[in-house]
């Protein structure tokens, strides 16, 4: 796999535009322009989750590596926060009306819906979340 995008930056909301630019730039350069909308969304959901929950009061850094090979573009997101597997969250109940419906809980679900693969692993001291996008095979 050849690396096509890398960034290490404070894990705070203000970093979101720079992270997005890094990943979408790498995706466009690798010929994945058609998937950039999905990528932006999944990326925002994944990194804002880290900003909010990984290290309360002590944001630390977030590191992102993009790679493309064989018609797949992958975005690996690494943070040093407490162990948290976003892929294990239950799907939200989409049938509830405005009054009943809880605010929030859609981020992890959107990630699942717009990626072609999402996987989590815990390394010593790190959460690693990998988002995969296929070139031609969009999910919707």
């Amino acid at each position, binding site marked *: 796999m050849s690396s096509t995008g890398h960034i290490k930056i404070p894990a705070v909301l203000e970093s*979101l535009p720079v992270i997005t630019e890094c990943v979408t730039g790498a995706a466009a350069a690798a010929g994945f322009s058609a998937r950039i909308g999905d990528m*932006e969304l999944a990326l925002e959901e994944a990194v*804002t989750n880290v900003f909010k929950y990984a290290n309360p009061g002590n944001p630390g850094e977030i590191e992102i590596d993009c790679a493309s090979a064989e018609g797949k573009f992958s975005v690996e997101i690494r943070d040093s926060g407490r162990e948290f597997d976003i892929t294990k969250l239950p799907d939200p109940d989409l049938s509830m009306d*405005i009054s009943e419906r809880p*605010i929030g809980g*859609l981020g992890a679900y959107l990630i699942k819906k717009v990626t072609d693969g999402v996987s989590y692993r815990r390394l010593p001291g790190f959460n690693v979340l990998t988002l995969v996008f296929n070139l031609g095979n969009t999910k919707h």
Partner: protein
Amino acid sequence: MTISTKKEPNALVLTVSGRMDAVTAPEFEKSVSELIAQGEKNFLIDLSALEYISSAGLRSILASAKRLKEQNGKLVFSGLQGHVKEVFSISGFHGIFKIHDTEAEGLKDF
């Protein structure tokens, strides 16, 4: 993200353009809150110029809708395009909100 307002006889039209993401979405919720505080109850949110929305945008919309419901107000949408339409659909927002193709059609709902 920019928000412009236009007073129609039966509703206030809010045209939201640009990006409604984790950075900008709180501005939407704040604007709607302020308008509710000023006595507005009927909102048509036109999203024909909105290019991008994330769960943060959906969260601010749902929070605004809950606040309006408590006041017996109404929140209707129009003009969703591409990515925004798709995110509304994935999230089940098509089932809980009234969504019209155009602003003119949306206004007939009030």
